[in-house]
């Protein structure tokens, strides 16, 4: 059974009296332990799809299954890492990480043990008693990763998690996240607009297009890890995906 199964998901919304189609028959499957990226220009509905999977938006057609169960509302089986970290500012890093476990009613001793493990895993040691406002952008995103991992979700949903961070920090965080991903064998769905990011990180890239938001094609990234960004295959794949997006854009303009 797939970790995530989006079956012909459609989403319409009404704006200024006009009905618009944000997603059209989007079918995406993510296997267990697989790392899949949703790549596309703004307006292609990649974030919308993520919100549907998260349970924040109800699809107007089709359905979403997580480990075989239909998604009807948000829940802790889908961990989310938001673009701007969305940490609770009044809780310390530690309290943020512990929140999901606390909600689930995990006893204190067990909770603390799990939080300690996560702090160790993402390298937050010594920062866990600080409030988010006292942490750097990279550190905040690490807390956000631990918080999402705490409830051991079936799938981790990431909404452009590295886009609000400066370039140097971003590269380090990507590598760090890949290390965590390999260690935890976590299923991941990553939304990104960066071709490079999708090729560095994922097993498979779902390329999406606009008007209406839909899947253009899927590209398997069959490169050994850790990936060499200067290798010929890497550059070939990057160019290939770039061409796909360019063609789509040109076609939709001429249409």
């Amino acid at each position: 059974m797939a970790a995530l199964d989006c079956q012909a998901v459609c989403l319409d919304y009404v704006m200024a009296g006009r009905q618009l189609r944000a997603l059209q028959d989007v079918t995406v499957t993510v296997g267990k332990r697989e790392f899949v990226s949703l790549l596309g220009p703004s307006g292609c509905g990649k974030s919308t799809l993520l919100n549907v999977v998260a349970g924040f938006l109800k699809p107007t057609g089709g359905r979403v299954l997580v480990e075989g169960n239909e998604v009807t509302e948000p829940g802790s089986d889908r961990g989310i890492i938001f673009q701007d970290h969305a940490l609770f500012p009044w809780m310390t890093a530690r309290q943020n990480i512990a929140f999901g476990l606390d909600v689930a009613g995990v006893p204190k001793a067990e909770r603390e043990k799990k939080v300690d493990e996560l702090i160790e895993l993402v390298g937050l040691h010594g920062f866990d008693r600080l409030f988010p406002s006292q942490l750097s952008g990279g550190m905040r995103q690490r807390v956000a990763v631990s918080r999402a991992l705490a409830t051991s979700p079936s799938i981790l949903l990431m909404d452009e998690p590295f886009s609000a961070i400066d370039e140097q920090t971003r590269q380090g965080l990507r590598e760090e996240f890949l290390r965590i991903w390999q260690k935890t064998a976590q299923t991941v769905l990553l939304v990104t607009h960066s071709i490079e990011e999708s090729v560095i990180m994922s097993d498979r890239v779902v390329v999406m297009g606009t008007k209406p938001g839909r899947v253009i094609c899927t590209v398997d990234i069959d490169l050994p890890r850790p990936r060499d960004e200067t290798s010929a295959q890497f550059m070939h794949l990057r160019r290939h995906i770039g061409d796909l997006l360019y063609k789509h854009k040109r076609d939709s303009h001429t249409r």
Partner: protein
Amino acid sequence: MSEVGVTGTRVVPGETATKSDSLAPASRLSRLGNLEVWWRILAVLLFFGVWQIFALINQRIRLVNPLFMVPPLELRHTLVRQWNDGILLDDLRTSMTTAFEGYVVGCSIGVVMGIMSGYLLLVQRLWDPIVQIFRSIPPLAFLPMFILYLGIGDLTRVVFIAYAVYFYTYMNAMQGVRHIDPVLIRAAQSLGAKRLRIFRSIILPGAMPSIMTGLRISAGMALFVLVAAELIAAEAGIGYRIMWARQYFEVDTMLFDAFLIGVLGFIIDVVMRLIESWILRWKPQVVET
């Protein structure tokens, strides 16, 4: 910091010191080193100095009736006299008790209703328009009605202060709830939190900065309307003392009690800001409003 780095870099706890210190809530005391503070002190000294000198000269040349022109240093005798008569503590006790009771009642109702109005659309739709109507009317306009209904007693003043204070706490609590970042609510939902938990762990703490602002403004407002109420309807208290002194041409008493209110207001504001910055210690800096 560490994330410049390579995968799996361990962070040395010592490194946190500089980062966290620079972002820690600014200490109030550190402001004393600020040049601006000394300018302020100079301005105050200059003002009272000129006043003192003018009042002393006036006693000779009688430009205005010296009865009306009290030198500020004279007020120290007023302090001693009021202290010895026991008036000072009596007035303070009466006024502060009334203000405190009215403040607590008004804030409690205001905060609870503000939160409800921000959280439940039905409450907001039915109650908010009413608040907006009465908010634009100065509370003092209703004081005669309060007196008519409740007589001239403690109850009138307590109710009046509670009424005046209500608007500030209500408005701020409501805005605080309404302006919570929806992403935080989504984050909590995705971590399994349901309605009640979200209310307790996200809505309430998220609205807290705004609620605290309302409580602080209300504290000043309580004092403000207290004096107004006491000027009109009281048998004791600081405002009453000022009215009483007018009948006996005791300008020094009137001035002294006016400044007494000023000092009280200042102390209350400082205390409220301390409480606020402690409750909101997770914020990088308490926002001045």
